[in-house]
């Protein structure tokens, strides 16, 4: 029995070393993106940590729909840039989080709204990204006046133009969008007080990848080590401004 397990483990290790793991994430700056350094924070961290743990990893940025569809049929081994989602745990094993981001409301400069509860948002028109997941209660709140847009930039522009009252997103995403896509917006919008949600960023590996749990364990161990020696912080600061 032990001998068999040992043989299996050796086999997995051998396989892992010969066939590289394929890690993918959707376009979601600054967490992942084709044009970003290291293809974004998630893929950079996943690649660095797993390489340090002795795995051969290839990273790729693909559209969201393709990412999820292909995760089902086993095209990609590792998914990056994910908020934890209990529904997906049936297929995926989540690693320890390596980054925490806050979801906050964005309002025009001069407005002084402060977030209290989702229900309090009822009088406001809010731009939301098509298919974006922010926070459970907010996502389910159909009574809110939500204007669906395609990109975070659009949502911020609508706020700046006064077409909607508010929008919301990860502060890191908002900052990155303003800095890179339309720096003028910096003087026109601001974050409202109050945090809607705090979201951890994880790596997730498909359960049916051979030695998936072992890979997650190795990732977690290496990640903890890098966090301790400060290398993780350095790595993260390449991608976000705080």
């Amino acid at each position, binding site marked *: 029995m032990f001998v068999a397990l040992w043989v299996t483990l050796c086999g997995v290790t051998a396989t892992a070393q010969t066939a590289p793991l394929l890690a993918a994430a959707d376009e979601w700056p600054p967490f992942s993106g084709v044009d970003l350094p290291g293809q974004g924070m998630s893929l950079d961290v996943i690649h660095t940590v797993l390489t340090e743990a002795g795995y051969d990893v290839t990273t790729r940025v693909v559209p969201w729909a393709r990412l999820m569809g292909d995760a089902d049929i086993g095209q990609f081994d590792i998914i990056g840039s994910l908020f934890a989602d209990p529904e997906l745990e049936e297929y995926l094993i989540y690693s320890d989080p390596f980054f925490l981001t806050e979801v906050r409301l964005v309002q025009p400069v001069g407005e002084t709204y402060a977030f209290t509860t989702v229900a309090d948002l009822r009088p406001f028109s809010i731009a939301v990204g098509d298919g974006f997941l922010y926070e459970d209660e907010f996502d389910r709140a159909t009574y809110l*006046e939500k204007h669906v*847009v*395609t990109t975070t930039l*659009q949502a911020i*522009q609508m706020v700046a133009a006064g*077409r909607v009252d508010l929008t919301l997103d990860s502060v890191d995403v908002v900052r990155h969008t303003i800095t890179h896509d339309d720096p003028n917006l910096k003087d026109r919008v601001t974050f409202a007080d109050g945090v809607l949600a705090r979201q951890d960023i994880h790596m997730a590996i498909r359960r049916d990848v051979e030695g998936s749990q072992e890979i997650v364990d190795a990732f977690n161990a290496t990640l903890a080590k890098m966090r301790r020696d400060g290398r993780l912080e350095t790595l993260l600061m390449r991608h976000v401004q705080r």
Partner: protein
Amino acid sequence: MIATLRAIGFDNRLGLRLVIASLIVGSVLSVLSTSAQLGASYFRQRTDATLVLSRIEDTLASPLEQAVWTFNFDQVDVILDGLAADPNIAFVELQSSTGQSWTRGDPDEQAATPDDQRVYELVHKLDNNRSELVGVLDVRLSLDAVRARVWAEFWTTFLTNLAKAYIAAIALLFLVGHMVSRHLRKIADHVDNTNADNTNALRLDRAGSEKTDDLDRIVDAIDRFECRTREQMDALGNEIIDRKQAEAEARQALSIRSQFLATMSHEIRTPLNAIMGFLHLIATYKDIDDKPRVYAETATKASHQLMSLMNNSLDMSRIEADAVEIKMTPTDIHSLAKDWHQSAEGMRHMRDKNIKITLDVARDLPPLINMDASHVTQIVSNLVDNAIKFTDAGEVDIAIKNATSDGNPAIDIRVSDTGNGIPEDARARIFERFTQADSGMLRAHGGSGLGLAICSELARLMGATLTLDDRIRDGFTTVFLLRLENVALVDLPT
């Protein structure tokens, strides 16, 4: 090649002219019909093109406004690209209220003077009855594409129509050749070849039809014309036969008359000669009295007159019956002239005239002259007879000389006398038959008045001329000139 062209009727000039005319008409009509067709097509396409503007209003304005409203510029691009893909849209400009602007197409080129232009205000309606102008869309329409298409269409349609006209024309050429021209040619050949011997009726090689057309009428007309012509020709033929018969009869009658005259003169001359012989015997008989002698001499004179009248009548009838034969032979004019002189002496003696007869033959006359000696002698004898007859005292002269007529050698024979001459008013008539200058003289001299008429006819038959010479020679009152023309003067062989 030529055979092929001929087979389809290209040598058919009439058909070709018809075809060229139909081509010209066809081309003009095809230009007109193509223009009308394409004019309609142009207006239809223009209407269609303009419909784009309302379609933008209906279907594109709303999503575009939504995209601008939500700052979905990718979507704006997609929509504007779709709009600009319409070939009739020359220029599109979108100006958003937040300062963005998009353009499609070239604003300078055609859009400066667009065929149509529409400006849309993209207004976003908010729930609480407010609305916001999010952008202005400016669309300019150019119908250049439509025009180019219609133009291209024009040429295609025009050329197709033209090709149809050409094919139709060639078919027409063939049909005209088959249905008309070959029949016309056959009619022409038929008319060309029709004559008295070839009287085949004209039949065209064409399917019979109840109704008659122009070709049938031509054939009928030619048939009738040929019928009439045949009838007239038959009538003409009969008339010719009749005339020929009449002519033959006339000729026969003439020959019978000549025959009759010849027979008669012979039958009369024989007994007359006997009478004259016996009268001569009686007159010269020694033992008769003077009275019967005078009777006999008078009877002899009358017999001579009868004989002369007979001879003249016979000659005249010979001339009328074309029975006079002219025989040109080389003749020794010198010895002939001597004979004339002798016989003139005889006549003088017979007429018992105390006049002098002289002969004057030019030395330079050629020895032999080509002439009808017997007929010339007859003429000279007649002239001399007249001269002696109408001269009571003085001289009768026979002169023969060389002459030229129109540059050709001729012989002039003059018979002159010193008689009482011919009155001016009679000179023109003396060569006519039965004409005598003074009818009173007839009793004195006798004669029929045929002599000069016969002479002049004989001269004419010989190619000679007999005239009264106006240039009266010294002392003579009457000069007759017989000019022998076309005489070949024959030299003696050396």
